[in-house]
């Protein structure tokens, strides 16, 4: 890693360099003051770098599109619709969101639409410098520093409170793609001392997290099947099926499909006789009452308690470890922030911990 590590005085130099080859995607405030991942960002706009700001949205949609056309029908045959992509750089992605992308890379390994977008994206990760409001990445091994092999480039600020005179930023090229992306930039090589400093900052930051031990306690209870039915029922009463958690969750991947048809001539009555149609997919949510409901009316997840339990099972069950080598939750805490019924991750895990401890 040392061989591919560099020093940088000003992050803007790197950003302007990458902007020559990639369309810039970074965190900006929208008109309502919400911090969001923003496409086609002007590289002269100062991004709200992730080390201070966990944006309310994750960059999930740049890989697994919120809505996209899959294929079209011309009346006789079906034809794939390949996503139109341009090379993009996601500049300043936090460790939690990078871990989520690595998770989705596995889930969508065989999905041609996801992969088409993915191969055109350069990931520039950024080490966080302080815990964010609801984040518990350290508890689920997703951060706070960027995990190995989750980004093409990692930038890490080395001067904190003026404690370092060596350089402002450490830049690590983790992949060949990352290495190629900084070709032509005159950068000094980093030394072992810079990595030691990076680690020291990581240790310091780890100690600044609140005590989130209830999360891992609750994970154990969940996997022991020790959470009583009545608790799922009590919590599920608070679920409004708004899909806030699943939309904001950077690892949620469920989708539904729907069809759009070209307007038909008046003399054709049947919907199915449409001359041209497109099949699209759109993010779906396992918390919706009808997510599993079949045409017959049979619904294997009829009870809200089943759906709420399912969501947390998918995030924290050991059963997924073989496939993904980690839990589905990356500790970003967005579900806690958004859930109007206060059954986001902290609330749920605290209640499970309290209930099962007593």
């Amino acid at each position, binding site marked *: 890693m040392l061989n591919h590590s560099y020093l940088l005085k000003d992050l803007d130099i790197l950003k302007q360099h990458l902007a020559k080859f990639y369309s810039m995607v970074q965190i900006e405030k929208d008109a309502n003051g919400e911090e969001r991942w923003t496409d086609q960002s002007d590289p002269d706009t100062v991004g709200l770098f992730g080390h201070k700001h966990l944006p309310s949205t994750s960059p999930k949609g740049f890989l697994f599109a919120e809505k996209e056309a*899959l*294929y079209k*029908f011309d009346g*006789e*045959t*079906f*034809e*794939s619709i390949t996503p139109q992509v341009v090379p993009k750089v996601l500049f300043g992605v936090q460790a939690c969101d990078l871990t989520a992308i690595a998770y989705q890379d596995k*889930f*969508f390994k*065989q*999905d*041609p*639409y996801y*992969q088409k977008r993915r191969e055109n994206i350069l990931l520039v990760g950024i080490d966080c410098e302080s815990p964010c409001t609801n984040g518990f990445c350290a508890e689920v091994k997703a951060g706070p520093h960027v995990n190995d092999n989750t980004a093409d480039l990692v930038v890490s600020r080395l001067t904190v409170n003026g404690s370092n005179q060596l350089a402002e930023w450490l830049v690590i090229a983790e992949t060949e793609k990352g290495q190629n992306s900084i070709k032509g930039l005159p950068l000094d090589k980093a030394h072992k001392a810079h990595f030691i400093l990076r680690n020291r900052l990581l240790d310091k930051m780890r100690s600044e997290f609140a005590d989130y031990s209830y999360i891992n306690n609750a994970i154990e209870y969940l996997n022991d*099947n020790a*959470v*009583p*039915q009545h608790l*799922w029922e009590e919590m599920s009463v608070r679920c409004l099926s708004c899909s806030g958690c699943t939309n904001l969750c950077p690892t949620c*991947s*469920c*989708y*539904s*499909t*729907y*069809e759009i*048809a070209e307007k038909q001539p008046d003399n054709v009555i*049947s*919907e*199915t*006789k*449409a001359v041209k*149609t497109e*099949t699209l997919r759109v993010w*779906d949510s*396992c918390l919706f009452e009808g*997510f*599993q*409901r*079949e*045409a*017959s*009316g*049979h*619904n*294997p*997840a*009829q*009870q809200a*308690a*089943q759906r*709420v*339990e*399912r969501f947390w*099972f*998918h995030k924290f*069950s050991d*059963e*997924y470890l073989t496939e993904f080598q980690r839990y589905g939750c990356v500790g970003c805490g967005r579900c806690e922030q958004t859930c109007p019924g206060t059954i986001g991750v902290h609330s749920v895990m605290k209640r499970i911990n309290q209930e099962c401890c007593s």
Partner: protein
Amino acid sequence: MLQLTPQTIRIVNIYDDGTNAKHFTFEPKGFVHDKPIGIGQFFMLTLPGAGLAPFTYTSLPDENGRFNALIRKVGRLTENLFSLKEGDVLGYNGPLGNGWPVEQFEDKKVLIVAGGCGLAPVATTIDYLINNNRGESVTLLYGARDLGSQVLTKERARWQTKITLCETLEEGADNAHSGLPTQHLLQTIKEYGGLPSIVLTCGPEVMMKAVAKTCIDSGLQSSDVWMSVERRMRCGVGLCGHCYVANSYACKQGPAYRYDDYLSLNNKMVSTQQHQGAFQYC
């Protein structure tokens, strides 16, 4: 890479086969089946403008690649499908999922319990066993709501002389055949040669669970019972997430599950263990 875009099939034959049910014959258009289709596997149909959904093969492709499906009109998509005519084209993705454990049939005595449209996913199994001169080892217990609701009329007529066929109706049958198939299960086992070695069941999930329980109570192992579950699907290849059974997807690990596997999946979630759905034929 997975292929989500369907291939084109053409409807070559349609006939009525039970109340609100039709039997379709499809023919590939511009492609040949490049993978062998296992009995109990399924395919996704895309109805342009209406959507996509999973259906089962009631016959495997013939020399022209033609295959059949029994479909009941239960929703918007099937309503649209029923408005189509011979010659109309649709989208097809298949074969998908894991079917019945044919390799385990060997010389075993097979009991098949089907409810409603649940007869469709076992049809290829019955034909397979008959074609392999194993018809004598097969007992089919088939339950339906009433006479009109029974499906696969031609097939049942063909099977009648080759396997042991018992039919029950919720309404309109004599005492010996009235009620749910589960009510006749023990009697059927007793009358037709005792405990089977392997049980396949397909129908309402509550029915399948009851069938499994009765068989296990009678002395079978839970690993001797297989069921084919129905789930809503939007892809058929393990991506859309709709067809979950705990940490498995019915489109990949299923739709045919060995009962002990199905149980241990369901037991992973407290609320699912508690919840018993209603008995409802499709």
